[in-house]
């Protein structure tokens, strides 16, 4: 029996757990909060722009379960909003129980409200993970998907302080960089201005607090675009956000609201008083972060150096996925990198060659491209997502972007990887 321990139960961790379980591992997921999915509990945007291609690739590669859930939990499909086409918006209030049930059905062991704080090493291998309650979890191979958000001190030093986001550090304790505990130094993302980290790119308003017209439009179309009073337009705010795919002037000149169960406001934060000057938002209040008028969580302060098979460099039996594995933005990116890490964890234990996704798939290309770019100073200031900014441009240039499912299937067939993530290796 190969024992796989996944640290962090966000989208990447859940994907890694599923892939490792399907490949034959006995999988444990350690999650510090009381919910899986981490920031996925307040996200919701799938299949916009190149993410459509990537999601379909993942489905043909055999990692379709989580995309199936986000499709089933969709409130709106085929939504267009400034700079973005054919998005699916999943309902954030439905998706976590669905994922939790799936993982349980698969026999994955979930350690909820357990926080990993340290490692015990045997030479260059992790022997076990130490939890905050002094208990330990041993394994043959470990996958770190702890993300890069927070904790409070980082949000204070590089942001506007703890604004009470979904990760709830004051309640559940801080995220710990497991790779750093093994002795491998973290890589840090930078902002355009050179400061470290970046603000999360959106906040959520309580839908019941919005005007009737806005709610109606959101419920019917999934989108509502409201012009910002000219005196309140702040273009410099675009520089500080994580989600460069939404760092477009339309997002500075307008409030873009998306319906994900809450009203997702596509800006890192917006002072409540100014927000309430806008017709229809007179009663607006924040749902996430609770102090969304003040700031947002700070991310990208903790990436591990890795190879393109998602193995962390410098530790024999540690893999990584999601934001821990690079300057990635989004659920789709987390699910894809997590799936590869999970699958490869089993290959590693069996001593067979690790899988690298080929660059003629968007998934393989982004994993390799982000890894090259992270080594350059300017690359550390960028974010990598199928849905926009630098990487979506590259997808288009390399003809990787398509929404033709047959074409995507053919591409995966051509590289002989159909259903690879569904293959049992043990």
């Amino acid at each position: 029996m190969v024992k796989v321990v996944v640290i962090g139960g966000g989208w990447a961790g859940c994907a890694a757990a599923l892939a490792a379980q399907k490949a034959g591992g006995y999988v444990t997921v350690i999650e510090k909060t009381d919910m899986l999915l981490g920031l996925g509990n307040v996200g919701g945007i799938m299949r916009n722009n190149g993410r459509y291609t990537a999601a379909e690739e993942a489905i043909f590669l055999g990692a379709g379960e989580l995309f199936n859930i986000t499709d089933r939990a969709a409130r709106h499909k085929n939504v267009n909003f400034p700079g973005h086409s054919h998005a699916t918006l999943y309902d954030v209030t439905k998706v976590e129980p669905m994922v939790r049930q799936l993982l349980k059905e698969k026999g994955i062991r979930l350690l909820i409200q357990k926080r990993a704080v340290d490692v015990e090493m045997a030479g260059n291998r992790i022997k076990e993970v130490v939890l905050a309650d002094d208990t330990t979890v041993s394994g043959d191979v470990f996958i770190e998907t702890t993300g890069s958000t927070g904790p409070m001190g980082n949000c204070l030093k590089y942001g506007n302080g703890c604004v009470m986001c979904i990760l709830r550090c004051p309640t559940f304790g801080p995220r710990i960089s497991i790779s750093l505990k093994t002795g491998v130094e973290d890589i840090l993302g930078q902002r355009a201005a050179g400061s470290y980290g970046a603000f999360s790119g959106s906040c959520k308003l309580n839908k019941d607090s919005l005007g009737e017209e806005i709610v109606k439009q959101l419920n019917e179309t999934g989108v509502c675009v409201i012009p910002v009073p000219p005196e309140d337009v702040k273009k410099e705010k675009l520089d500080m956000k994580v989600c460069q795919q939404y760092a477009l002037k339309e997002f500075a000149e307008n409030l873009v609201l998306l319906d994900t169960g809450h009203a997702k406001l596509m800006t890192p934060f917006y002072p409540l008083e100014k927000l309430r000057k806008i017709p229809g938002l007179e009663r607006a209040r924040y749902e996430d972060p609770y102090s969304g008028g003040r700031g947002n969580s700070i991310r990208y302060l903790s990436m591990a150096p890795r190879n393109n098979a998602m193995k962390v460099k410098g530790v024999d039996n540690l893999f990584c996925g999601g934001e821990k594995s690079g300057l990635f933005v989004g659920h789709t990116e987390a699910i894809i990198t997590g799936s590869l890490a999970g699958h490869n964890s089993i290959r590693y234990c069996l001593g067979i060659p690790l899988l690298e996704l080929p660059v003629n798939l968007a998934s393989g290309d982004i994993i390799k491209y982000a890894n090259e770019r992270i080594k350059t100073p300017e690359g550390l200031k960028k974010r990598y997502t199928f849905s926009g900014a630098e990487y979506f441009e590259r997808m288009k240039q390399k003809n990787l972007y398509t929404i033709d499912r047959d074409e995507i299937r053919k591409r995966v067939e051509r590289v002989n990887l159909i259903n690879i993530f569904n293959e049992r290796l043990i």
Partner: protein
Amino acid sequence: MPEKKHECIDAGSEYCPCYLAEVNECITCSQLQGKSFCDCNWRGVCIYQEYVWAGNKSKALRKEYIGEVLERIPLTDDAMILKIRVTKTKARELKQPGSYIFLRDLKKPDFFNVPMSIMYADEIEGIIYVAVQILGIKTKAIQAVEDSIVIRGPYWNGLLGQRYIKQTFDSECLMILRGISQAPAILVINKLVSQRNQVKVIVDPGKIGKIFIYDFINKEKVEVIEQDFLSQEGWKKISTELSNKNLSLVYSGGSDKQHLEILTEMEKNNSNAYLVVTNNSEMCCGEGVCGSCSTKIDDNVTVKVCKVQLDVRKAIERRILQHG
């Protein structure tokens, strides 16, 4: 390899962040150790946040105040219990196991401050009890105190392994006490009893020559046995008690040598019980500054045990090595 983090007893209290934060020497927070990113030993609050919000300043230090000596209860020629009136708030702050204060005669300078474990605190009446054994210059000065006594506190790190006390409910506990160490055990006994534990206390009166805890505990709920540990027969009795597999918590009140013997015996028996011991370090300031309680735990790592909850085994072994 990143260093292991220590647990500060004051973290999150009204005295945190303390002066150590101002000089990048915080025991808990990496940001307040001069590092650039978070890597703390989380104690339930963000000390950095508290510090920045207070305008990059530490909280006020503990102040000295005057207590009224209400009664001296002689134990022997060289030992007594002092009953001292303080405010109700001060008494309440000193109710948790491991609480201690510094005491000195009003007429003496600062360096006469002597650390003293709290034996009992009555927050309804605003009274605290301490047991003083006259051992040297500073305790002799306490003996000479008249009505008023200078108190500085509260401090809390008088025991190592405190969290085990907090987490033990509905279990069997064994407490092994010798001499004046009966005093700090009373807060522990009462706490364990309030958590519905079955508590057996074995006391060697030692130099004090008597058991003085009865008036401060619920005798019906605690089994107290007198036993001379230093005799072969006495130690055999302790060994038998320690071999009880149902024990969840063992408390040793006495010298470091006693702690070590108990720890060794527990390991011989493969005991799963947690061990809590009295912190026998010499303390002078209580604030992690002066260094009199410094204990070297690893090469080049010195820990101020007046504030740090050190691993019990590490603490005992190192102190025995250092002090013989």
